[in-house]
């Protein structure tokens, strides 16, 4: 499947993957929050939320702000 991760197209050999698997493959650790197709996904749902071809994943982390 091909999905968009932070605006970049990423290709995976699997047809679908859960969010926690994707975060592991991409080597994300702590201090992040995730939105799937512009909808916030709570951490506790990473293991049972399935990402499919064409989906958009946004992975955000703290930065400076005003």
């Amino acid at each position, binding site marked *: 499947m091909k999905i968009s991760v*932070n605006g970049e197209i990423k290709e995976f050999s699997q047809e679908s993957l859960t969010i926690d698997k994707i975060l592991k493959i991409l080597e*994300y650790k702590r201090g*992040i*929050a995730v939105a799937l197709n512009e909808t916030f996904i709570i951490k506790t749902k990473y293991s049972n939320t399935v990402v499919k071809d064409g989906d958009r994943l946004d*992975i*955000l*982390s703290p930065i*400076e*702000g*005003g």
Partner: protein
Amino acid sequence: MKKWKIEGREFDSRLMIGSALYPSPEIMAQSIKASGSEIVTIALRRQSATSLKDGNAFWDIIRELGVTLLPNTAGCHTAKEAVTTAMMAREIFEVDWVKLEVIGNQYNLQPDPFELVKATKILIDEGFRVLPYMTDDLVLAQKLADLGCTTLMPWGSPIGSGRGLMNPYSLKSIRKQFPNLNLIVDAGIGKPSDAIRAMELGFDGVLLNSAVALAQEPIKMAEAFKYAIIAGRLGFEAGAMEKRDMASPSTPTVGTPFWHQI
């Protein structure tokens, strides 16, 4: 100065400060300390796993300061984007409040009042304490208050413009109409005198960033704002004298020597 309460939390300082645009992370940390501010705004952005490989240095510095964090939804243009960002911020920062920012115009970064109201309603229903960044519109203030906001943050002037208070009349009107809400002037402050003016209008606090971060000496400017906020607040509490058209001598006139008599 007495402590004050905002959204159920108690603070000494009435200055809220941003964490962006400083010449370096070290100057940011020292400026925040020098400002005496206990509330610091921060944001969320897309970041790659590579950039976070060794942790998040900015996040570590901010945490070490031991301040209360106020996440913003900067960069959002719709209620949906702002709601999603606020929810992500609540999870990461473990706070239930948000500086709600929904931009409606790219030229002056003016908040979109319609999307702001929409997002405020959703977030309050989701259990958030919403601090809306808004224009100085009295009707908008009423709508937000009706939804349950207990803090309103009208702009002084556009974000990062340093133009001070463009419309003191509107700010004064909001203060007069909402005596029981916390009112913060957010955005547009350029000089310490702008902050004093906001506080003298009876505003409960000031939120600024560029005025300190872009100053020639940010740490010194942060300290200047610390005292400006105190001066403005004490001045407001003390109550200024009435203006008069005619001069009135302050030195007693009784016993004036003869050579002064006309």
